[in-house]
């Protein structure tokens, strides 16, 4: 199992387009992927579910914990880390 804590810097947080990109990326991998919002200390949810990710209420400056477990767990973690580091593929 892989685990990683990441600070979300995107101004929208994990809503709207960034949330959609996050879920789409997670959906590409066969392993189980969960995410929880450490800042609000809420529940842990399925990272492949847009509805669940939205309910985490992740805002700019929040830290999230991502866990991947199973087939391609390392690749999945790297892909999600890169997505967030690239500010969800935006240049600015």
């Amino acid at each position: 199992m892989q685990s990683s804590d990441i600070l979300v810097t995107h101004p929208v947080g994990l809503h709207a387009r960034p949330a959609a990109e996050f879920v789409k990326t997670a959906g590409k991998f066969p392993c189980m992927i969960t995410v929880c919002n450490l800042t609000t200390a809420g529940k842990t949810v399925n990272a492949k579910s847009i509805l669940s990710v939205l309910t985490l209420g992740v805002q700019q400056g929040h830290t999230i914990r991502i866990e991947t477990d199973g087939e391609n767990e390392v690749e999945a973690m790297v892909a999600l880390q890169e997505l967030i580091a690239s500010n969800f593929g935006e240049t600015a």
Partner: protein
Amino acid sequence: MHQFTGIGVSGGIAIGPCWIYKPASVSIDRKTIADPSLEVDRLNKALIEAGHQLEQLHERALINIGEADAAIFEAHKLFLDDPEFLGAIRASITTEKINAEAAVAETAEGFARQMLALEDEYFKARAQDIRDVSRRILYCLNGISLDQYNLSQPSVILADDLTPSDTIQFERSMILGLCTRHGGPTSHTAILARSLAVPAAVSIPFEFSEIVAGSDVILNGDTGTLTIEAGKEEIESAQVARQSWEQAWQVRLKSAFEPARSLDGKLVEIVANIGGVEDARQAVEFGAEGVGLLRTEFLYLDFGRLPNEEEQASIYREIFQVMSSRPVVVRTLDIGGDKQVDYLDLQQESNPFLGWRAIRMMREHPEILLTQMRALLKAASPQNDLRIMAPMVSSVEEVQQARAIFEKAKASLQKENLLQVKKPQFGIMVEIPSAALIIEHLAEFVDFFSIGTNDLTQYTVAVDRTNERVAYLASPFHPAVLKLIDRTIQKAHENGRWVGLCGEMAGDPLATPLLLGMGLDEFSMSPSAIPEIKELIRGLNTAECERMAKEALAQPGIQAVKDILEKYRPKDD
């Protein structure tokens, strides 16, 4: 023959078959089922069908309303594929042995409630999306196709009310007219009808049971009447009326490209209020001499985040190209109050109209305004005539700050060799009484003023214009509002500044002689109002209007003012 009268919101006469738009209802009552696996099969088939529909809608929306607004259907598709959502539906079918309809509706409602509990405008909209997706699946389960939107012939659409997601489904060329039982002059139906330039009336008190689907009806968008069961004679006379209306419209449209010069030679500028490149094209078609108000909120609402300089510039550039050398007045970001954006750290306020909105964000976030001004200045070519204005100004200090940002944007672009536009102007909106009362002090820092009568009225008479119980008090014809407008124009002229007006009042024929008499330089209105107002001005005498304006300003109340204006209303021939 039977006639119903409501409120006309978009002029013209439509004659044709009616199309009754009534969203079908599906029973979502719980039923025990014998074979859950058959029920899951039904569900799976419905999900595939719903997915196809959303893809088609997305494509149609891309053509009709553009990428940003079409994104909503992509989001719906994501919900439709959500593993938690689908997992919960399938689980309740198999474990509780209930019908798919109940499982879908209950699961969707559960998620919708979770979203609503988050108390944020953004999540409220998502709750609505989940319910929309749920409705679509329920329809697919019951073989109710959304073919109800595929009109087989051009029709007058009759509905309870129309929402944006309802109307996008109709083919534009099939809409003869729109007629709803609910809604007011600012409802979505009204706005859509005006932008499509089709006749429309709202708040028409008809019952669906009284009307035979497909029967011929007559809709008059000027008088706000719907006629059903019309005899041959009524239809014929309506056809004559429609023909003369269309001829008059054509004449107006032709002359719309002529300047608006009064009988005694006073020339005023007639320009358009727009919110995007589509509107810009329509404005030019309707004879707009420029743009008096380009709203820029859509950029901030559509992106779901702060649009960067380049993203903004490319959208502005498209609009500036359409307007070419015609002046374009751009209002900088006006968010807060009744418009919400989730990423701007807007907080719940008990009085959002009096709160942290528009130019007031500049103190904490000057970079937002700087980015926008740089994007605007950068996007304008040497042949463009760009004018930037700041909304919600209440004091001299705010104007100084905004002007400093404008100058900074100009200077930095000049340094980078990116400033092409010649002599861009800077101005402010006059929509707060405190600004209207110190125009002479503000004049030093601006090139022009633009009066926003909707907000000026609301702040003068202390009425929340979105509150229907008190909205009747919010008339720009209140003598106090008129005095503020008159003062603004006078003091601006004394200081050598020009004045525009971009509230709904500018497109109201009743107000035209009054505003002309007060000396207004620029009238900015919705594009479809331009031909009529131009024609009206050509028949007015300024000196007479000045006398009338003086008389109107001396009245004690709204009705007395209107009585005087009514005498000047041109008689229909």
